[in-house]
């Protein structure tokens, strides 16, 4: 039995909440995986900061066009109905509240909705990209993440200790163990792995998990 969801399974779960026709921005890296798991019959329109709406999967190796890339600088393809635009229009879409969903990775998420996902501290070269813009404006900002850090420490906290990306911006967290909403400064548990007890989940969560009605089973396919 799986003790936690794989990244693919977390991505799959997040994908189930994306409506047909939604405009969606997926953060660089792990969040990009969400695109693979759209339920049959639904088609989201994906936005990338560098000025493309309506892109599809990566092209076959060797057929890349390096003027057709996503924010992670990976080659993409276009779907019918795609559009190009410049960076100011692209971030007007982001900041202006036109995206339905942004799904991002996280180092830490606080019960206040604060997110830390751009800097692990003062060492090295800082780089922020579009993260601070994406957390503002999208109608729904969700995070997908392992429930704990690689060394087992909670990533869901009362307050972030790492530099913030945004204040009070995250409304739902899909983790390797649970689906948790952020409401009025609280973590509200919506779904958890069936085999995991509430207490065990609470033990690896850095802030109080609240309940608001029944907690559903978090069940995903094997992926």
């Amino acid at each position, binding site marked *: 039995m799986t003790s936690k969801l794989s990244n693919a399974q977390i991505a799959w779960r997040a994908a189930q909440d994306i409506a*047909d*026709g939604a*405009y969606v921005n997926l953060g660089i890296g792990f969040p990009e995986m969400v695109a693979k798991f759209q339920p049959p019959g639904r*088609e989201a*329109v994906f*936005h990338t900061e560098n000025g*493309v*709406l*309506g892109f599809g999967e990566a092209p076959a190796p060797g057929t890349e066009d390096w003027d057709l890339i996503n924010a992670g600088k990976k080659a993409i393809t*276009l*779907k*019918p*109905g*795609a*559009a*190009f*635009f410049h960076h*100011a*229009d692209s*971030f*007007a*879409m*982001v*900041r*202006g*509240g*036109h*995206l339905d969903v942004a799904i991002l990775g996280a180092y830490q998420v606080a019960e206040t909705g604060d997110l830390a996902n751009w800097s692990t501290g003062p060492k090295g070269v800082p780089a922020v990209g579009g993260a601070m813009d994406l957390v*503002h*404006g999208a109608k729904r900002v969700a995070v997908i993440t392992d429930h704990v850090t690689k060394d087992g420490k909670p990533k869901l906290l009362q307050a972030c200790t790492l530099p913030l990306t945004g204040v009070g911006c995250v409304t739902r967290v899909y983790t390797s163990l649970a689906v948790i909403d952020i409401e009025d400064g609280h973590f509200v548990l919506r779904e958890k792995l069936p085999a995991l007890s509430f207490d065990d989940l609470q033990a690896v969560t850095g802030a109080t998990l609240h309940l608001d009605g029944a907690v559903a089973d978090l069940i995903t396919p094997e992926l």
Partner: protein
Amino acid sequence: MDKRIATLAEAVAGIEDGAVVMIGGFGGSGAPIELIHALIDRFIATGSPKNLTVVNNNAGNGHVGLAALIEQGMVAKLICSFPRSADPKVFTELYLAGKIALELVPQGTLAERIRAGGAGIPAFYTPTSYGTDLAQGKPVEEFDGRPYVRERWLKADVALIKAELGDHHGNLTFRMAARNFNPLMAMAAARTIAQVSHAVEPGGIEPEQVITPGIFVQGIVEVPAPAQEEALNRANAHYPEVTA
């Protein structure tokens, strides 16, 4: 995804009393005449929507389009830059009678306020109107030794715009100078309805030639061979038609 709406009546069905409605166009060029007339039809049939705040560069011309909307008494307030033109009698009479409110905004500030509304910029500074009556009551601040006026964004519940091509995703192109305020208003409204002269399949507009990406558009309704305000006014048209 298919944002097509079958009829003009459906396209304007959701607009409520008291709504802020942006209407595209500069004079008649780019004005969504058929959408406006559909709104008038609805008002005549149902008494709604009324008490509208309309954002447009002008105040209509003659007795069609925006002028006809104003003539019906549906508009409580107009936000515009230039409510004077060849035949703005409808607006002028109501305004001088104190029956319609006017917020006068310099044209470039109007355009920028609408863009700001669409782009999530709640306020910005502009040199325009500094030291004039139109800056009264607005914060002023100096940058690099020059004074600027702070202006707020402008948003709307609905935008009614006119485009040339529109695909099912709502991607739009515009015909010549009929572009004007249309792409900006599309950005700034919670719900943007575009009348398009030609509805095309996704892929029917080259991605590089899209002017308004579909994310800014909630519905399109095809109106082939749309009327041109200038031509209607030269024919002394009235909407609804005056029956003798």
